[in-house]
């Protein structure tokens, strides 16, 4: 099976600090790939390289098996890669529909085509089985954290995206809301998207992911199937970069 998104040997430095060392990573359509690692392991940097926010120093990005150049967020968007950032990037003073179409409004001549945007937003939300918002015309400021996360994810899905990258979507949520968001993450993958889930929370990772990729100090320690590893092994990979046969040998990618 060809991964939908693959990065090969990516290097990235900020000045003298090398943040990513020859990182290999793959995400498959219809699967949730969890990207785990300690603080500073390079998770967000890797995602930002894929999203076109940081230029890469070396290595290549492959989309559907073909090498591609991602020079900016717009390039990533055109390929179908959408990133849902930790701090959400929603406008509190706009409603759900307005936020979902922000920057890509549908127009009818000069004026906005509110009705078709509202219809499409409603369709997207219901296709994700989101039923927890009273009205899609309610302001985002009146939504709970979980509902906001849902809107942010739905916004990413709206654009026929193929890869959705979620940066710590459950970090700020309560137990019930976390469950809701994880359910949504699973549904995204079930509809055929490649989902990358960045998370610190092992319970979340084991609840929804098909594969786990563990970063350790800027190196990819291991990318394994979730079914093949235990909780403890993943924690070991995160904290020391290796676990038994898995992981880095002498600090070098195997």
């Amino acid at each position: 099976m060809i991964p939908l998104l693959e990065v090969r040997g990516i290097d990235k430095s900020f000045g003298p600090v090398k943040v990513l060392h020859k990182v290999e990573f793959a995400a498959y359509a219809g699967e949730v790939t969890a990207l785990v690692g300690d603080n500073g392991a390079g998770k967000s940097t890797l995602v930002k390289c894929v999203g076109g926010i940081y230029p890469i120093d070396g290595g290549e990005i492959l989309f559907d098996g073909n090498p591609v150049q991602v020079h900016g967020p717009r390039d990533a968007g055109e390929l179908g890669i959408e990133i849902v950032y930790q701090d959400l990037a929603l406008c509190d003073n706009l409603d759900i529909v307005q936020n979902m179409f922000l920057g890509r409004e549908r127009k009818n001549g000069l004026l906005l085509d509110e009705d078709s945007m509202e219809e499409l937003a409603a369709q997207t939300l219901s296709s994700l089985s989101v039923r927890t918002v009273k009205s899609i015309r309610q302001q985002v400021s009146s939504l709970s954290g979980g509902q906001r996360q849902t809107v942010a994810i739905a916004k990413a899905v709206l654009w026929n995206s193929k890869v959705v990258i979620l940066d710590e979507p459950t970090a700020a949520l309560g137990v019930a809301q976390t469950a809701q968001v994880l359910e949504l993450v699973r549904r995204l993958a079930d509809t055929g998207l490649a989902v990358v889930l960045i998370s610190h929370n092992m319970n979340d990772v084991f609840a929804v992911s098909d594969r786990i990729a563990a970063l350790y100090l800027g190196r990819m320690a291991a990318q394994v199937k979730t079914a093949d590893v235990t909780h403890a092994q993943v924690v070991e990979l995160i904290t020391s970069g290796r676990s038994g046969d898995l992981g880095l040998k002498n600090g070098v990618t195997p």
Partner: protein
Amino acid sequence: MSKVKDLPGEAIVTATRSPSIGHSFVAYVERVRGGDMGALPAVLGLIVLCTVFAIARPAFVTSINFANLFTQGAAITLIAMGLVFVLLLGEIDLSAGFASGVCAAVLAVTLTSAGLPWYVCVLAAIATGVVIGTALGALVAKVGIPSFVVTLAAFLAFQGLVLVLVDEGTNISIRNSVIVAIANENLPPWLGWALYAFCVLVFAAVQLLRAAKRSRRGLTSDPMSLIAARVGALAVLAGLAVYVLNLERSRNPALVSLTGVPIVVPVILVLLVVWTLVLRRTAFGRHIYAVGGNTEAARRAGIPVDRIRISAFVICSSMAAVGGIVAASRASSVDPNTGGSSVLLYAVGAAVIGGTSLFGGKGRVLDAVLGGAVVAVIENGMGLMGYGASVKYLVTGSVLLLAAGVDALARKRAAAAGLR
């Protein structure tokens, strides 16, 4: 994970049916309690002020005074309409008052010294506003100087510029009949009624068409009763206003008749409709709200934030130019004080009293009109009560502070209620 589906408190409603008028009212009350007051303070303030002045000075409710209110508040209202755009971004334009003075001076100089036709002069004045706005916006957006400082500097510089334009303090009088007519002449009564009928019909048609279109698509639409109430309210209030303005208000009707809707009223109406349309129904307007609400989110959504900032300043200064033209028309002259003294604070006050937030992201063009009405009523009523400039300034200052206080408290309340 299906266990989370029926959480209490997370209402699961697929609302395709239209809410009744009762629901709309309840929702409105909830919004107000949650800190989103909208136009409520301005409307309540207007009612209270009008009642107080009407009881204290019967002259306040005469038709001549009613007409005066419009011409008195017009320039400030127009400047405030422009300021709404800048305030929506969370910025401020302290130079709008003197920008209007500069543009009025350009108008006066091109009219008198250059002797150009009036429409060329009006265009020149508005073009001056565009240039001023572009410069201010570029300094704020591209160079990154805080708007407070940029426009404070411009506030001083424009005072000097007005002096230069009017030759160190002479008073340039404007005799062009078209320009003078803007703030001093009235529509014939029949045209006032025709305009009234047109406005009410268009408003009703737009509301009905939108509701019909939305319900045909299965989207929630406003209930018929709410639309009827809105249209009815507009018809009654505007009808009353046109009726009163069409009464004879000349002291000596045999000599000269004075009736009709002041020409500034349709000018303000047209600009109100145009800018509301821009703000509410175009992508540009949506982006202004987005930049004011969350600049970073707007940038990530691919919105050209700098360009939006500059455009807002351009709109603000151009509207200041329009306000300056009306002010020049009302005084039939331009002097170094045009657009000076309290004009700017009144205009900012008008926008804020109307419900536009100083923190950005919240406001409507209509706010400027409502707030402008409050400011005009205060100024006019205090004048009738025989208070001097000192008391007027004190009262208007207090009202501005009160409005800003209401804004800040509403924001706090909204934060406490989990909104925002």
